[in-house]
């Protein structure tokens, strides 16, 4: 009970503090926030390139991690014998505990050079590289939660399906996955939250340039995300300056994005549940 209130209070506090600190930016910059140029020296604070980068990187991460994660979870919960399942799962969960700066270093040392040589780029610091790293980072969340969701489905469903003469792949596809759909979506949402908020690894890998690639779908170019911008500039901005306020404003935008996504998913699935 108390801890619930504490969590709610902290969330509210973050919301209020962020909004309070970004008020200057919203009132002085206004709609110019949604422009392309970010230049604190001239008081220009356009966030479009960062919004673009955040969405691009997150999309890449989800496109890679969701299919891979769900497939792995199906394997660990349905195909792998139970006595191995625990070991494999612990190993996967260990991945989630690795600090993100370690992922960042591995990304710089290995992944970025691979990306550079495979696609013959002059630099491996691109939106794609950051997306790949993020995918690896959110995989354990998706795998472990999906695995639990599938594993916790009561045995009777599986046995009934078997009794109806379905093939194993049909049981997974037609019975188990639809039943676990809500929980899998929850897993993806949690992973999405981490992908949107991840800072260190992305900051080291994304290139940190406030540009939208030319053409815009060329994700093999460097970019900037909201978090990498915050990570690089928050220490350099003076407390109370417009620059600081603008950084708070982009943090506030990120929070709004996460909240909106969470609420949308919740609403969508509540509707689903009723129609069942």
């Amino acid at each position, binding site marked *: 009970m108390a801890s619930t209130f504490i969590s709610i209070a902290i969330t509210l506090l973050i919301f209020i503090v962020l909004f309070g600190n970004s008020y200057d930016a919203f009132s002085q910059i206004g709609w110019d926030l949604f422009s392309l140029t970010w*230049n*604190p*020296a*001239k008081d220009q604070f356009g966030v479009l390139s960062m919004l673009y980068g955040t969405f691009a990187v997150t999309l890449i991460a989800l496109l890679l991690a969701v299919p891979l994660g769900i497939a792995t979870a199906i394997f660990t919960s349905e195909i792998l014998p139970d006595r191995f399942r625990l070991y494999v799962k612990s190993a996967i969960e260990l991945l989630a505990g690795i600090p993100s700066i370690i992922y960042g270093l591995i990304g*710089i040392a290995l992944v*970025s*050079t691979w990306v*550079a040589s495979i696609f013959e780029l*002059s*630099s*491996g*610091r691109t939106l794609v590289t950051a997306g790949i790293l993020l995918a690896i980072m959110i995989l354990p969340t998706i795998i472990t939660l999906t695995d639990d969701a599938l594993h916790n489905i009561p045995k009777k469903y599986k046995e009934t399906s078997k009794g109806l003469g379905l093939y194993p792949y049909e049981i997974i596809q037609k019975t188990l996955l639809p039943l676990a759909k809500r929980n899998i979506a929850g897993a993806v949402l949690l992973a999405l939250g981490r992908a949107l908020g991840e800072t260190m690894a992305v900051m*080291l890998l994304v*290139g*940190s*340039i*406030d540009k939208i690639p030319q053409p815009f779908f060329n994700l093999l170019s*460097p970019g*900037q995300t909201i978090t990498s911008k915050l990570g*690089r*500039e928050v*220490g*350099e*901005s*003076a*407390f*109370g*300056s417009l620059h600081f306020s603008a950084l708070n404003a982009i943090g506030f935008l990120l929070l709004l994005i996460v909240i909106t996504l969470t609420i949308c998913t919740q609403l969508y699935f509540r509707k689903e549940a009723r129609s069942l």
Partner: protein
Amino acid sequence: MKKILTLSVFTLLVVACSQPNNNTVRVAGSTTVLPVVSVAAESYIKAHPNSKVVVNAGGSGVGVNQVGSQQVEIGMISRDITQKEINQYPQTSFTTHVIGKDAVVPVVSSEIYDAGITSLTLEQIAKIYRGEISNWKELNGPDKDILVIDKEASRGTRHVFMEIVLGDKEAVAAGADLVLGANNEEQTALTQSDSALGILSNAWLNDDVKGISIIMPDGEIVEPTLENIINNKFPITRDLVLITNGEPMGEIKAFIDYIKGPEGQKIVSKNGYVSISK
């Protein structure tokens, strides 16, 4: 039992969060000055076992901000404090202490250096950063796109470089491909690429990241050597500076004096910078 546990955790928290003792000198800022100060701090602590010096990185902008907001006692910067920064902190009277001298050098990946690009004019470098030259071919180098590496806006190295090359320390580099932070991050990116141009402190050059010479308007080619930095021939030089809030006193003064003194200056030279005695 539970009560004792809670109590001890609480006490621990209070102790952990209380003010550091008065002998602690906190330093933060430029990664150009960092190697000197962190080595100096180590030997200073050895000589004065009761003192504590904590050194952090962050860049010149962070150094100014943290002294301004009084989070640290000493800031490290490798550029001038801007008027904007002075206005931001009316309560702080920034005092500067020069501890050495350095040059900011345009650097290229070793592949480009070996392909024959060992010197450029300031105008050519400016054109690359403005985005008007984008391939090494245009400078008689190999047919490769230039990977132009820029630095975070408030970094000292960038201020000094852009002031000389583009005429404004806060100039926008339209041709930039990457924006990086500390000297070591820049060094890594230059090493990993085979067609990069970046900016580094002279002391951070090595076999993989080679500093190029500057062709002066009269045709003279000036190499980034210590000698050319001492006699001011190399066009992009700067001071390494420590800043404090007002005149330093006590432990802070002792540490700054140590760096300015013979042992500190030895560390300055050892790290590839020019000591103030020269």
